[in-house]
């Protein structure tokens, strides 16, 4: 299991970045794709906004942009239809794969 996955298991989304280039690296990699130096980690603030969404059965899902341009697909919890650019808070877990879940802020 990778560091990223291990941290997800603890409920922490770690953002991979390159100190040298000041770039975010996503999906996370050990080496920066620009300078090939070793990357570093910082904890996400777990805030994002909705880029696009749809619904499967009774559950919303969508593409969310969290810090510094990182985009993930995840479930969206909302009592009403989500809106583009709406702010969401992220929670994460990991079993055999990552699960990204988002709750609409001020729902």
């Amino acid at each position, binding site marked *: 299991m990778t560091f990223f996955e291990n941290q997800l298991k603890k409920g922490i989304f770690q953002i991979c970045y390159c100190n040298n280039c000041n770039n975010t690296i996503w999906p996370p990699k050990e080496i920066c794709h620009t300078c090939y130096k070793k990357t570093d980690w910082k904890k996400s603030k777990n805030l994002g906004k909705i880029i*696009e969404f749809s*619904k*499967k059965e009774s559950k919303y*899902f969508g593409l969310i942009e969290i810090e510094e341009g*990182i985009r*993930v697909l*995840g479930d969206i919890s909302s009592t009403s239809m989500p809106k*583009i650019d709406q702010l969401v808070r992220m929670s994460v877990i990991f079993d055999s794969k990552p699960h990204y879940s988002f709750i609409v802020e001020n729902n």
Partner: protein
Amino acid sequence: MSKVAIVGTGQTKFSKNDDDVEKLLFESANNCIQSVNNCDSSDIEGVLVSTNNNSKYLGAILSETMGIQPKISHSIEHLCSSGTNAIISAYAHISSGLSDIMLVSGAESATNPGQVLEWDKSRGNLEHPIYWGSMLTKAHKRKFQTTDEELAIVSAKNHKQAMDNPFAYSNEPRTISEVMNSKQITDDLRILDCSRSCSGSSSILLASEEKAKIFSDQPIWITGIGQKTTSASFTKNILDRIESTRISADFAYKMAKIEPKNIDVAEVHDAFSVCELMAISELGIVADNKSGDFVRNLFNTENRMINPRGGLIGAGHPLGATGISQTIEITNQLQGKSNKRQISNAKTGLIQNMSAAGTSSSIMVLEN
């Protein structure tokens, strides 16, 4: 650089049967050799296999099964566009002079587990293609006011066209209403908007200009090639664009010295209905906001210019074989051998094959 021609083709019927990929490869490769004048398997200098199957060493296995001891043989995997990428590799071998005659065979088994890109952590647990398909569809509706009916017309058209393709998975007609009322997968996708994984194989024989004249009375020339990979992870995409298709099409048009208006017939990668609308726009065949009208007009006038064999939605999508079957369709069209599917007087055709939500695209221009 030698010119490169397509001189032979062979396919199996696409189905849900759980066939061995080795057996499927042999069947289409054998059909391909049988389609060529005066060709013996010992003439073949290279064997490339395109597949996402986990079976090992398929280039060598197919060679041994066919009684070939090639100079060049290996497998090529690039998800859904493995087939066209294998053809492009064979083109490079021939045009550089490393080989004169290359067999390219693609196959997939319906139960193959190797069709999900586990590396892409940005998809989380929503790794099935229906999730990115829904995002692209919703974004297209939002930006271009695309309607559910326009999306359904893509599927109805391609199912109708697949009825005249003897190798297609589906030979059932589907009305617009049937598509719009088919099982709802998400708010933005119905089951009949989706292509289906299936078993199947297709093979193609490529030859240098010198050998092409020996093997075929109607060689079809590969005159343009473009390939572009913008990323591997889906979430880097701009949702209402397939940037890799636009860029690779530009490369192919420049190489062939043609413009989009010169295209008589095209096979495009309709993994989902919306992908056909997006592809024809990125290829420059129609403006972004007119793709729905364009496809509606094709359907109403029974014009088969786009996806005459039924596309992925009608014909099925055995990943490693799809790009080769698309190329075979355009080859047959340019040879005037497409029977009921024939576009009259087709001289220039195009293939658009893509992978992983359009993060990579391959384009080929063929001419007779």
